[in-house]
């Protein structure tokens, strides 16, 4: 246990983190390509079409993973932000900032695919369904976080201030979700709930899980890559940055 603690601490040192992330990224990138390849093939070709929704249901293979990822990344971002704020760990601050764009992107994709799935299913692109509405508010939370980070010039202050915002946001996410859900059930007339097949065929479930895994691995790779860039930007005057620049030409 203590040994692992020391290990963890070692990797929070900027240079070590930079090197470790650099070594990990290619693996995750390769894994991403493999998983997306298998998942797309299974989802688009192998899996049979749904007897009710026809082929339009295939959007589920990207709608569900992106929606999960969007929500999960927000929580993860808030956790890193809290660690960075409370224990003043630079790497955690950088991770929080690096997660935000990817999280926002996945949240947007969940909305986009949700709308495109809604059209054939409900007949309209957008319904004020509880899930879509809370995803929309989540996207706004991401945008607010990024806007606040960008608006403050001093880097330390930007990290701290947006960490407070992320923590306030993460406390609010369940409250928002609950109230939106409640609002939605009260106005039942206007909305149609998503029709989920009661028993999902095994192949569909497996495909879905592969796609979920693929978005996971993609997120890890991209976030680590962005964290490296952020780290370089923050530490550009440090000696370890100069040393590494000598080493890698492009």
């Amino acid at each position, binding site marked *: 246990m203590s040994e692992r603690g020391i290990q963890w601490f070692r990797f929070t040192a900027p240079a070590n983190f930079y090197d470790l992330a650099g070594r990990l990224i290619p693996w995750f990138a390769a894994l991403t390509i493999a998983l997306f390849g298998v998942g797309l093939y299974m989802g688009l070709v192998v899996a049979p079409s749904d007897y009710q929704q026809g082929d339009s249901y295939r959007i589920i293979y990207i709608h569900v993973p992106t929606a999960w990822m969007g929500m999960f990344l927000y929580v993860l971002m808030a956790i890193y932000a809290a660690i960075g704020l409370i224990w003043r760990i630079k790497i955690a601050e950088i991770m929080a900032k690096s997660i935000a764009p990817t999280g926002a992107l996945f949240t947007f994709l969940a909305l986009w695919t949700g709308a495109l799935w809604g059209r054939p299913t409900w007949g309209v692109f957008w319904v004020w369904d509880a899930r879509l509405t809370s995803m929309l508010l989540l996207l706004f939370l991401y945008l607010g976080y990024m806007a606040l980070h960008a608006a403050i010039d*001093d880097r330390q202050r930007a990290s701290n201030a947006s960490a407070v915002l992320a923590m306030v946001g993460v406390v609010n996410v369940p409250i928002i979700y609950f109230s939106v859900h409640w609002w939605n059930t009260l106005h039942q007339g206007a909305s149609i709930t998503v029709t989920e097949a009661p028993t999902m065929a095994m192949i569909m479930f497996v495909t879905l899980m592969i796609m979920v895994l693929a978005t996971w691995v993609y997120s890890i790779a991209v976030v680590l890559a962005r964290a490296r860039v952020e780290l370089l930007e923050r530490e550009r005057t440090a000696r370890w940055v100069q040393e590494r620049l000598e080493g890698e030409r492009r």
Partner: protein
Amino acid sequence: MADREFRAVALAAERGDRRLFDDIDFTLSPGQLLQVSGRNGCGKTSLLRILSGLSRPVAGQVYWGDEPIQSVDGGTGSCLGYLGHQNALKEDLTAEENILIAGGLGGGRPDREDVLAMLASLGLAGYEDLPVRYLSQGQKRRVALARLLLQPRPLLILDEPYAALDVQVIEVLRSAIEAHLARKGMIVITTHQAVDIDGDCHNLRLG
């Protein structure tokens, strides 16, 4: 007045990418004054804000006795008074109201007579019931000083207190500082002018 030492241990501060200062150490005992000097932009104000607990240093810690300055028993403000570049006066309130309210906020029950006497000693007799917006820059500074001197704190941290003051007021302030030191108070001060103060004075050069 003060019964403990005020210590800075290995303080460092940054602005953007630039290190302002490194490894600042000092110990101030009751009755001592520390003058911080250095050219413009060398981090005097940053140091003073760190000493008063308003900013967090990149490294190091400030202690009031054995307690870190942020977690002093009874709040940071119970041990020190800080006068920054801004006068911290409400333009719509009169000089007297400003001081009385600040005193009330500080937990004291300021006496109106004391306030008027202090304002008079700083040459502001007759201005006490005017909204502060009608006062000149120098007069506002004097009101801010009056507020500070009326709050009995063992440690005073003064950032350019002489700015915009004329000669007589500088004299009044000087004697107030000397009296504070004689009462075993402590002072940390930055100033451009050389003002000779009778007492146990020390110097810290930045940059």
